[in-house]
């Protein structure tokens, strides 16, 4: 047993330099605040939309309106200022805010058509709706599970896009393609490394190394993105456990 083996490894593995998205949304600088909100919206708009569709079982058009209204209120009413990291995770807080919005929308039967008084965001609802049609609807799941699963889908999707572009910039496109084939495509895991090597015209040992690189980078990017989406070290760790921890 080496002497340097010690508890505390996990603390060393997570980057801590990036500002939390919550801190950034409270920044005095408008540009910084806007960038933070853009990041938050890009990670959360699909989970919010799909959550309203799956959990609240709202029609396509109503779900679009509610999603727009939710983010509009989030910005205009500074809902993030009320978020207390000690009391809940950001993900849970946002879900509860969505719940509140939908419930209030139900109560306000006499209200004007939604969307009339909100700032419209450019969100690709057609894609989100197409994704819902492609995926099996899991309406029986509890609200937290639906929202968590959709957030994981959104976050992993964003992380893969970042990995793709970083690999391209670093001349490692093949590394990303291997990850895509082996870890994302259905049936990829049935291939042997020899099969993959033949398909890409590389050595079997290279498949191992390239795949290890892509997985390592994917993990790094996911954790990096997750750090920006959380407000405290504790929340970050809990979210990492929820989203990356394997099923126990």
């Amino acid at each position: 047993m080496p002497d340097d083996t010690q508890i505390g490894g996990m603390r060393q593995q997570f980057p801590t330099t990036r500002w939390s998205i919550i801190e950034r949304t409270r920044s005095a600088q408008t540009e910084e605040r806007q960038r933070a909100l853009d990041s938050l919206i890009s990670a959360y708009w699909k989970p919010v939309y799909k959550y309203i569709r799956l959990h609240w079982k709202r029609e396509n058009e109503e779900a679009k309106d509610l999603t727009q209204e939710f983010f509009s209120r989030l910005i205009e009413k500074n809902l993030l200022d009320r978020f207390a990291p000690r009391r809940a995770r950001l993900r849970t807080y946002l879900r509860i805010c969505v719940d509140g919005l939908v419930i209030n929308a139900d109560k306000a039967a006499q209200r004007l058509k939604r969307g009339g008084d909100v700032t419209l965001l450019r969100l690709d609802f057609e894609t989100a709706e197409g994704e819902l049609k492609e995926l099996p609807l899991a309406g029986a799941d509890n609200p937290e599970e639906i929202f968590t699963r959709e957030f994981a889908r959104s976050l992993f999707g964003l992380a893969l896009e970042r990995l793709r572009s970083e690999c391209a910039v670093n001349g490692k496109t093949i590394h990303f393609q291997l990850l895509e084939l082996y870890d994302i495509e259905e049936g990829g895991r049935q291939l042997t490394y020899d099969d993959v090597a033949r398909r890409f015209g590389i050595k079997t040992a290279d498949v191992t190394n390239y795949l290890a690189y892509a997985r390592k980078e994917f993990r790094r990017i996911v954790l990096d993105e997750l750090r920006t989406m959380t407000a405290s070290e504790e929340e970050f760790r809990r979210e990492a456990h929820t989203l990356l921890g394997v099923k126990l």
Partner: protein
Amino acid sequence: MTRLLSDSAIERLREAADSPDLAGTRYRLVEKLGQGGMGGVFRVEDTALDRQVALKVISVADPDETSSFRLLQEAHVIAKLEHPGIVPVHDAGLLSDGRPYYTMKLVQGRRLEEHVATVPALSDRLRIFLRICDAVAFAHAHGVLHRDLKPSNVMVGPFGEVLVMDWGLSKLMAEKVENSASSSVDPGPKKPDSSATSFGTVLGTPGYMSPEQSRGESVDQRADVYSLGAILQFLSADLSHVPRALAAIRKQSIAEDRTKRYQTVQDLASDVAHFLDGLPVSAYPEGRLTRAWRWIVRNGVWILLLLAYVAARALLIFFRPR
């Protein structure tokens, strides 16, 4: 454009993110072997020695570091328990991503729960059980409680070797900690949180966990005796007829009240060995007739020889020329 990830793709990506980063180590990842409560076990190639070993590493996310602590403690404990029934640890350290790991012998075998289906004879199953008891009694002698004994934590190798695995919940017995005797096992790393396995914390597997352990009370070697009793029950569960003496052994080993259980694993093993040899067992007091019958059955050959000798002598006397 962001691609749509199916639920199964998300699971695979989680698994991929969880795979150990072996850069800078002498190991090369081959495949994932399994997943436990604490982390994953991977088959890796030890490039320095050109052999395959098993590498255990905590999952990528370990929010409170309890798993890191348990993994390192497990490595420290197993490393000190050199016994043929306990899988040897080769190496331990930190991966470049900061996660602790250790490597151990790659056991090519089956979990007891699968293996038992291929062993129909009760006597063979009990011999396996005795080897489990040997390993656990050895650990107890070195001050270590397993605390999670169950069929899935026992491997049976292709040559019949029996190995007790998964010492992640193992704990030093209180008296060994207090005495800090040189023969006892070094507990390894210090706990990040002293309450991690203390009173009130329930760790273990329902069905195999002693009542006191499920209540979160402090435990001693009798908790492992209970788990062994539950394993004995598992090993004889599919028998159409369980001999009374064996049933009594099972009953005593899983007694609700630990003072009524076997007090040590050796006591339990001794009764099982006696049962196998056709000897009386302490858990099942026998009447005189039963004992006499057992004596007759055990000494049948000698009794027959004696009877034959007596008959021959009688015949010789009877037919002796007068």
